[in-house]
């Protein structure tokens, strides 16, 4: 409760400071709108449906692309950890492409898929997949061999060992890779949406972009707040349960 109050106080103070700066009149309201105006914009955008619609478009791209990236990434990571040839080929490719900021895929994606959803999925998948491959590979390599041997004496073999021993043993690594993949995917999707118009759907990035075009700073800041909120929500909904599980089972320190 005390922690909650401290946090609440901090954010109220922050809003007040913002309001105070606007009130001082040193900046034009065009550049720095009052927090109340941003609030008004957010309420009207929720009421007329634009906010929910754009959020839905963006989240659909993100979630579909993200889960596709994980579904492809984990098996590839297992493959690179299991076979030397896969490590030398796919593993090296993953390592290289992971260093490429995923927004760099946008031009290529637009050329290949046009201004469509497919291009957005592609960018998100590229952002997610490589870090998932690498973390899965690292995770599997760091599994103590004694786990697999113990499992073998209990009659575990082949697929069973991979699914029931190696994969769960590598889970701490995989979760951190999946989380990093999320960060990459989210950033690259926002960049792509701000950067190009996608004909098949109008997302949050576009709303932000058009806010600038219309000189509607309340809209720009309002959308930024929504983007922050989605990031926080994703952390709470997607990752916090896994991290809590790892923390409980492994006894690792929560960060």
């Amino acid at each position, binding site marked *: 409760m005390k922690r909650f109050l401290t946090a609440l106080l901090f954010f109220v103070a922050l809003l007040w400071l913002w309001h105070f700066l606007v009130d001082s009149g040193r900046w034009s309201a065009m550049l720095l709108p009052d927090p109340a105006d941003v609030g008004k914009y957010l309420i009207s955008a929720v009421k007329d449906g634009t906010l929910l619609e754009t959020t839905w478009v963006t989240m659909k791209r993100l979630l579909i692309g993200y889960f596709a990236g994980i579904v492809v990434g984990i098996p590839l990571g297992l493959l690179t950890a299991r076979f030397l040839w896969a490590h030398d080929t796919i593993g090296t490719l993953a390592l290289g492409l992971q260093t490429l900021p995923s927004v760099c895929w946008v031009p290529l994606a637009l050329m290949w898929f046009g201004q469509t959803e497919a291009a957005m999925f592609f960018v998100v998948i590229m952002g997610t997949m490589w870090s998932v491959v690498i973390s899965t590979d690292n995770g599997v390599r760091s599994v103590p061999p004694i786990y697999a041997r*113990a499992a073998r004496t209990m009659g575990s073999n082949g697929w069973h060992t991979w699914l*029931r021993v190696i994969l769960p043993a590598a889970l701490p690594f995989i979760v951190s890779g999946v989380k990093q993949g999320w960060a990459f995917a989210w950033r690259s999707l926002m960049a792509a949406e701000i950067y190009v118009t996608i004909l098949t759907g109008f997302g949050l990035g576009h709303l932000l972009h058009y806010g600038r075009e219309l000189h509607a700073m309340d809209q720009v800041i309002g959308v930024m707040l929504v983007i922050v909120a989605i990031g926080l929500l994703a952390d709470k909904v997607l990752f916090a349960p896994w991290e809590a599980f790892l923390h409980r089972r492994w006894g690792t320190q929560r960060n």
Partner: protein
Amino acid sequence: MNHVAAELAPVPCAKLVIDHVSKWFHSGVVKTHALDDVSLTVDEAEFVCLVGPSGCGKSTLLNMIAGLEMADQGSVLMDGKKVVGSGRERMMMFQESALFPWLSVLGNVLFGLKLKPGLKDSERLEVARYYIKLVGLERYERANIHELSGGMKQRVALARSLAPNPRVLIMDEPFASLDAMTREQLYGDLQTIWAARKKTIVFVTHNVREAVCLGDRVVLFSPNPGRVREQFRIDLPRPRDINSPSLAEHATEITRALKQHREVAAE
């Protein structure tokens, strides 16, 4: 007879014959002769302790009995049948705790049982609980592995290896990393459990007193290459107390022999 009772019924213990086994390891250009013409018979329900310095191939021999490694020459036989792979009939309990951190105590004990066909999940649960109770951890079945002390972890490991009702139990220095107090308690518990669940046991240790306390027979190994040097039958009454003077006498005798072999090897 229902499945649980059948599952918990004693299985006939197995007789192990290690028949002229030799093993080499290659790492790069270095070739290590791990075991040289080792022959050993372990009778049904016998508790045999293998003692010797590091590098004498004890663990290698255990791995072969477990079916995790194959002999280069000779063979390991269980009831006259050659061991060609790992199997539930021979369960191994490891040096360091090889428990799975992503599973609870119950999950760990269930792991091997889930691989055993012909049982319902509720029956597996009942069997697992029986063994958890046997090692005295019934209050901890939901606990996570990291929450347990070293001694409790090895109790879980023991329950896990007993749960599929193996005919042979292979133990690779299971108590090496525990403190003396915990170890002493586990010596007592292991003897009680062994009386309740008769198994043929092959037990590796560095600790001569431990071997004398637990074993019907102590087999002395010497290193480079690993060979069987001498065997001692221990006829002390059970349960044995690690601190009893008669046990210490046996231990002294075996330690003396161990030193002699080492000196011979050094010359």
